[in-house]
């Protein structure tokens, strides 16, 4: 953040403090969306409570012309709309910053800060004048402060107006009320408030970009991958994956009253995965979406699907654990569990998207890998990716794409075979052929989670049992070449590596730049899948030391790297952030600076 005196164009951060259930969310995203439409790189992070109404909630907007939109920890302006949290909120604005508050009532002196400018807008009064119903007054207060911010930040008011018109298309009354509230705030600020040392100016950075949350993108990926069966049990923050999948199916998969999909709201997560496994066994592309507690409950069936070699796609939108933890906070703490889920010797395939664009791509990849390798594939996103709106490149689709259904024998291929062995005749990747129920006579086999030989027959013979589980281990290794390769950003002469995954991407890449300013040159690698491709090990070995940046307490990624690449743990240090809020570049910079003793 540059000094407050000189003007900051397209480089500032806001924090809006509200009470949840009062309609602030729409006003806040309205601002973010307007800035996006002005072509300026922006991010909006919703920090909300696990509650329906009445508790504190925050929204952070970061504007940065260079695209560094990870969470800022210093705020140029705070909108203080929540009396419960005034004190804390006001204390968070940087020295020289600003506080916008509802000046209908005077702000108590304890709250004032000498090094901060207070901008009063009589929101309640303004709205009370113009609106009758109490509910309207409450809701429109938000649009009113949005109007004031539009004026203060130099956001193009026409863009905002257009957005409101779109939102309330066909609802004239609502539209007018909102437009009025916007004007109230806008005019008041224009008349009574000083210009700010930071503002938005139009850019071209939104060309070919869209605004989308990860759960919508994941749902879209499942739609495009051809998933027809979905089973789930509601759980924050994954619920909107299924909500969106259902909405998309309604839109694209319902032809003249016929629905080319079946979504079951299961009785629990065990059931949800059971249904996915049953459907996949039967030839449908099926998936479930859940969060940590659901993964814990799915443990037994994950081991079953691994051993019986049945495809399954599981989306884990991670939240803060352990146990119920903080359901509306983010973390990356299900890595170890997902990698080795279930009793006995089990290893799974994991994908780690970093943003909604990858959620879309990896969802499609997940189905291909699950069917190719006949095993569960887990897509690990998190609350930050899944529930926040992100600016990402427009999603693209290649119409020549054909799904990889893996080794499923047709009736003809079956006939051609002297004998069908479900768990023999492996290919180069140790995958064996399967048949689909009902496909025709001669292809029957018996699925079991109990000991079986390569023919699928029950066995308790050590050698026959081992023959199958040994192949499973090789098959898992083979998948390493098929998961998305790590993405590496190199800087000349770097001897230090920084490793991250998922939503660590933006903050870590921003941090790399900031570190360079401090004379610490680092290469960055973002792992995108497990088992790790050879390039991961290579990167670790190329560097004297690597900092593994992850959002959990126990250095779970570092643990996986140590176990699976054989690289000595001594060369891997940790940067851990697990308080539940999205990672900030600052946290990474501070930690690495401290550890490198600069």
């Amino acid at each position: 953040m540059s000094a407050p005196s000189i003007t900051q164009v397209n480089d500032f951060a806001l924090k809006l403090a509200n009470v949840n259930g009062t309609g602030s969310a729409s006003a806040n995203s309205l601002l973010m969306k307007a800035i996006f439409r002005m072509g300026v790189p922006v991010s909006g992070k919703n920090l909300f409570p696990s509650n329906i109404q009445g508790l504190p909630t925050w929204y952070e907007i970061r504007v940065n012309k260079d695209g560094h939109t990870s969470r800022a920890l210093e705020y140029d302006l705070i909108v203080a709309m929540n009396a419960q949290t005034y004190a804390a909120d006001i204390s968070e604005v940087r020295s020289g910053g600003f506080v916008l508050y509802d000046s209908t009532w005077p702000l108590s002196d304890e709250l004032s800060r000498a090094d901060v400018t207070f901008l009063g807008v009589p929101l309640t009064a303004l709205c009370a004048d113009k609106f009758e119903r109490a509910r309207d007054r409450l809701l429109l207060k938000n649009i009113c402060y949005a109007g004031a911010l539009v004026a203060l930040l130099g956001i193009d008011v026409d863009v905002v107006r257009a957005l409101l018109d779109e939102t309330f298309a066909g609802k004239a009354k609502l539209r007018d009320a909102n437009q009025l509230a916007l004007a109230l705030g806008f005019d008041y600020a224009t008349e009574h408030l000083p210009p700010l040392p930071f503002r938005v100016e139009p850019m071209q950075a939104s060309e070919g970009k869209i605004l989308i949350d990860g759960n919508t993108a994941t749902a879209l990926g499942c739609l495009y991958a051809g998933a027809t069966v979905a089973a789930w049990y509601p759980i924050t923050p994954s619920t909107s994956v299924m909500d969106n999948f259902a909405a998309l199916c309604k839109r694209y998969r319902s032809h003249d009253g016929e629905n080319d999909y079946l979504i079951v709201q299961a009785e629990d997560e065990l059931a949800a995965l059971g249904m996915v496994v049953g459907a996949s066994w039967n030839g449908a592309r099926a998936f479930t979406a859940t969060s940590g507690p659901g993964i814990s409950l799915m443990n037994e069936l994950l081991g079953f699907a691994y051993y019986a070699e049945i495809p399954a796609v599981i989306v884990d939108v991670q939240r803060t654990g352990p146990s119920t933890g903080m359901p509306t906070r983010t973390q990356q703490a299900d890595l170890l569990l997902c990698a080795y889920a279930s009793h006995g010797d089990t290893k799974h395939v994991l994908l780690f998207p970093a943003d909604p664009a990858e959620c879309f791509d990896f969802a499609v990849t997940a189905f291909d890998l699950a069917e190719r390798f006949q095993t569960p594939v887990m897509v690990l996103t998190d609350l930050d990716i899944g529930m926040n709106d992100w600016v990402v490149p427009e999603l693209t689709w290649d119409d020549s794409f054909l799904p990889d259904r893996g080794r499923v024998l047709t009736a003809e291929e079956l006939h051609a075979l002297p004998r069908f062995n479900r768990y023999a005749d492996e290919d180069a990747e140790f995958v064996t052929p399967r048949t689909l129920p009902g496909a025709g006579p001669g292809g029957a086999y018996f699925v079991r989670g109990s000991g079986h030989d390569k023919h699928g027959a029950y066995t308790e013979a050590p050698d026959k049992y081992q023959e199958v589980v040994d192949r499973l281990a090789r098959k898992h290794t083979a998948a390493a070449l098929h998961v998305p390769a790590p993405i590496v950003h190199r800087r000349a002469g770097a001897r230090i590596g920084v490793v991250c995954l998922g939503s660590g991407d933006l903050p870590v890449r921003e941090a790399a730049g900031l570190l360079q300013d401090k004379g610490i040159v680092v290469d960055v690698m973002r792992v995108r899948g497990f088992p790790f491709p050879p390039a991961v090990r290579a990167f670790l070995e190329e560097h004297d030391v690597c900092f593994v940046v992850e959002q959990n307490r126990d250095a779970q990624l570092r643990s996986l790297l140590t176990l699976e690449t054989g690289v000595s743990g001594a060369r891997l240090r940790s940067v851990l952030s697990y308080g539940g809020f999205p990672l900030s570049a600052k946290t990474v910079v501070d930690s690495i600076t401290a550890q490198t003793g600069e």
Partner: protein
Amino acid sequence: MPSIAKPLIPLAPVRRNDLGLSPRDYEGAMSTLCAGCGHDSVTAALVQALFELSIPPYKVAKLSGIGCSSKTTAYFAGEAHGFNSVHGRMPTIATGANAANRELHYVGVSGDGDSLSIGLSHLAHAIRRNVRMLYVIENNGVYGLTKGQFSASADIGSTSKKGDPNAFAPIDPLLLGLSLGATFVARGFSGDKQRLVPLLKAGLSHRGLALIDVISPCVQFNDHEGSTKSYRFVREHEVTATDFVPPQDPIIAHVPDEGVVTVPMHDGSVMSFRSVPEGYDPSDRAGAARYLQERRDAGEVVTGLVYADEGVPDLHELSGTPAVPLAALPFFRLCPGADELAKLQEGFR
């Protein structure tokens, strides 16, 4: 059919069905269950039912959980895909499988432990969803495979092999099913194959989930004096709600019509049952529940078709899916394609 020739003599077993298949074609692997285990009789009845309905074996999907009972899916219809899942989760696997392909005949075989303890909620919700399948519980009142602990279906006072009485209220899957809106509930006895086969056939022809509780004694751990799930006890305490009326069986003639319930099954076939207690009505849910309750309080075991309603749509009908299996839909029909994606994203700006 020979039956027309000599109507008064019980039919000789037919050698070949409409598909030209013999009962052999409906058999499976050799049973590894104990000699005399009730479950093997259920297997035999399933073989006969599938054979008589001329269902192509490869069109059958067999599903089970874990237990001696759950092993039986390996012992019939060897030409059918089988799915021996994990303990208690079979109903969820069946629901997903059925969702993917509505064309197969789903035969779920479970045990009283598998379905009434660890899997209870899954059974309950499969019933609510009216997933089209035959759901057989081979009910022996114990956990056979783990050597004889009481299951949740053990009656109060029924004694273990060691002589300890069970203290807890039993779960009658039929009463449970009725309270959950089950659309087909019946009870058979593995000791009476003749009356079990028609129930299985009716279940296989049902529109939704057909729940058939089969009392299937465990000769190893629960067939002793003092057990209410022994062959002897059931024989002595069986009462019948309804009795199957074989087609063209002359006895129909002698029965007052109002005693006969004809159930036109979803697949077009028609099953006729004769109410045994005066005016028993298998279409009266509350009445059926009351009858089960009262007979149980009297220490009796109700068998027969207890309740049936072919009027309730199954999971697919409720979901408006196409007649063809979802798993068979071509990719181009499922993927909206690049243009639609571009259109959609105009809304994301």
